[in-house]
């Protein structure tokens, strides 16, 4: 098998990075990258931010120019939906009745929006925000002065809220939780974001459950909550999380739970099939060896690199430090490590302002850091975590202590 064929299903950031890394590593086999969206691979993060405001164009979210694929002999097939895998014959089958033979298959099938399950959810002008097509449709409806109701105060909901408020819409965000980004960030950070969103003119309502959406001529007109509030809505944006796309793996009997189960080399139980990115349930060092599924660019890129390295004969267990970011208006939030329960939290900077980091220590060791407009803290924390460099809570909380002093530059 001197020149094997690698087929990647899913042409998002993870799928694209596999082919890019393989060609960078001088892999000479056939590469087929198949995506079910009609667009060439693009980056999703700007869709809820610059893209909606017109600061970022479709060309700018496109990850590689068209000629890149031809130049590097990568077969990019878009708008093609995989429906089955024949593992014994190593064939991927598609909705258009075609099949592609593989030596190695990479599942980078990502995730899909969790659908709002209330009466009226099917009305017009109810949007989700994951794909480029969804962003295009939503952008068209973002007209200054209109009322937007956002369901879900997570990253996507709040990023949209900040963009919409900046664009002059009246924005209300509802969430069943008690605070913004409740599952993702510390209470300290949540409180800052609540205060700053209110300054942007966003109304936030917590412990607030949607009962139904009310419509008029097929389009949403209002959102009614269980506690009886009726919020006028010209448009509704739903950001209540995602569900991993495991169907393809499940139908060919690969083990799946919340995600496709993979080992530390991103292999499924079939040595000819890997899974990476949002869909991969992997054991992560930074989750104390627990199995997790991470929805992030970092995870997509680094797992893709892990698979590419293994395919070219340089296997190395996946150990990358998780990191994430969320830009909401002028708030640039960056996170690294994984948030654990029962952590000692130390604040660096003044939480009355917008330049703050929260360092979380688990059993005395640095586990997770969130930084608001303190990118240097974020960058240095990533290195502290990856190098297992000891930082004390006292050092973290002392703003005059130079984090950089703990690190040695490469020579």
């Amino acid at each position, binding site marked *: 098998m001197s020149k094997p064929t690698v087929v990647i299903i899913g042409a998002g950031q993870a799928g694209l990075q596999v082919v890019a890394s393989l060609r960078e590593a001088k892999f000479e086999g056939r590469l087929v990258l198949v995506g079910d969206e009609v667009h060439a691979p693009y980056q999703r993060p700007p869709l809820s931010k610059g893209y909606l405001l017109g600061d970022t164009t479709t060309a700018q979210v496109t990850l590689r120019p068209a000629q890149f694929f031809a130049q590097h002999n990568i077969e990019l097939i878009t708008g093609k939906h995989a429906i089955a895998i024949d593992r014994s014959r190593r064939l991927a089958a598609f909705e258009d009745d075609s099949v592609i033979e593989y030596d190695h298959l990479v599942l980078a099938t990502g995730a899909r929006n969790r659908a709002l399950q209330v009466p009226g959810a099917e009305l017009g002008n109810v949007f989700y925000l994951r794909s480029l097509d969804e962003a295009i449709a939503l952008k068209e409806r973002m007209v200054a002065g209109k009322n937007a109701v956002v369901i879900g105060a997570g990253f996507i909901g709040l990023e949209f809220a900040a963009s919409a408020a900046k664009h002059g819409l009246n924005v209300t965000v509802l969430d069943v939780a008690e605070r913004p980004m409740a599952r993702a960030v510390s209470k300290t950070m949540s409180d800052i974001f609540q205060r700053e969103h209110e300054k942007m003119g966003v109304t936030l309502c917590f412990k607030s459950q949607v009962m139904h959406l009310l419509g008029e001529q097929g389009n949403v007109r209002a959102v009614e909550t269980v506690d009886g509030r009726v919020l006028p809505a010209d448009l509704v944006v739903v950001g209540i999380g995602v569900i991993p796309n495991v169907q393809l793996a499940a139908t060919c009997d690969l083990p799946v739970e919340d995600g496709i189960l993979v080992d530390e080399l991103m292999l499924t139980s079939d040595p000819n099939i890997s899974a990476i990115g949002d869909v991969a349930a992997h054991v992560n060092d930074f989750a104390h060896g627990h199995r997790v599924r991470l929805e992030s660019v970092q995870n997509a890129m680094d797992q893709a690199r892990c698979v590419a390295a293994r395919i070219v004969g340089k296997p190395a267990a996946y150990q990358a430090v998780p990191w994430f*970011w969320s830009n909401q208006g002028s708030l640039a939030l960056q996170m690294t490590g994984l948030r654990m329960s029962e952590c000692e939290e130390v604040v660096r900077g003044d939480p009355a302002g917008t330049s703050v980091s929260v360092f979380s220590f688990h059993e005395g060791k640095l586990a997770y850091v969130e930084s608001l407009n303190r990118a240097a803290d974020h960058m240095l924390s990533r290195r502290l975590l990856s190098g297992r460099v000891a930082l004390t809570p006292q050092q973290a909380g002392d703003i005059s202590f130079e984090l950089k002093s703990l690190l040695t530059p490469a020579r």
Partner: protein
Amino acid sequence: MVQVRFIQHDGTENVVEGNEGDSVMQTARDNMVPGIIGDCGGNCSCATCHGYVDADWLAKLEPVGENEEIMLDGVMNQEKNSRLTCQIKLKRELNGLVIRLPISQV
């Protein structure tokens, strides 16, 4: 097209061309120039597209932005001529731009 010369830490060179308006990071990525990662896609969030700009060229660039400045504080091996290459947009006057790459981005 605008020509950019990337010089790796070990002295090897890659001379590539990019479109006006594209960033130096994009140009490196599109041409598979090693030594630049750029994982965040030019959103000024990862500081893995760090490069040093030769003095002759530095004056022709837009000044360092506020976001870029705080990101640069977090890079290792920071020098006076450090830039994040995702923030440098190619224009005709930059034809021949020389970017030296650090020993490591991470």
